[in-house]
């Protein structure tokens, strides 16, 4: 009985921890070419986000991974399924990156 209770508790803690820790991963492109249909384009990879359109104040929820949201220069919004990445560049994977530790600076 205790074992079952403990395993349930552990599972609940694990789920709540991952829910808290999970942020969002998104791709964003910003065009300066007025001929482009999408002035800003956002593609959700994971997590959940929202986009507030500057011109209209409309809040677009982004909850479905691999969905692209296209915002025109006039503030019009269209959504589409887009399995392919928006960003056409590759990065060298980061390995063993140590965080920078900072300490308060004492002024003389």
């Amino acid at each position, binding site marked *: 009985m205790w074992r079952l209770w403990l395993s349930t508790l552990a599972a609940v803690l694990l789920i709540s921890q991952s829910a808290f820790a999970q*942020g*969002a*991963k998104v*791709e964003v492109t*910003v065009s300066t070419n007025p001929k482009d249909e999408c002035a800003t384009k956002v593609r959700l990879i994971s997590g959940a986000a929202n986009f507030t359109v500057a011109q209209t104040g409309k809040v677009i929820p982004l*909850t479905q991974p691999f969905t692209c949201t296209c915002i025109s220069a006039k503030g019009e919004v269209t959504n589409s399924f887009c399995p392919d990445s928006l960003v056409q560049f590759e*990065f060298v994977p980061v390995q063993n990156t140590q965080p920078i530790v*900072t300490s308060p600076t004492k002024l003389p």
Partner: protein
Amino acid sequence: MYSHKWMTASVLAGLFAMQSAVSHAESPIGTAASTRPNVEAVTGGNTLTLSSGNAIYANQTVRTGNRGTADLVFIDSTNLNVGPMSEIRLDKFVYDPTGSSGSVVLQARRGAFLFATGSQAKRAYQFNTPHGTLGVQP
């Protein structure tokens, strides 16, 4: 009379030098984990080449050239990949790992970006573009 003028000029020069020293003494908010030339970091009108391992600072603008890319890792593990021909300002960075006063504000001006939020509260993150604001759902 003349000595007063010299004293005033010396004090002003000293204050100017201190301001310059303080601006360089700001704590870094992360590091450029990897870069591919050309990548520039612009701070207060000064433009420097951003190379792998260099620190990044708040109020800095990161700009990439035709083939330039940068992978920026912030101290809260936020990851920002900047593609070629891109420009983004690291507007604000407040690290509050335990509380709720953290704030990460980025201002993308042009280009392509891959943005992954870090360890702070979701509402801390704000990714601005000229056409709106991207936030993380709580």
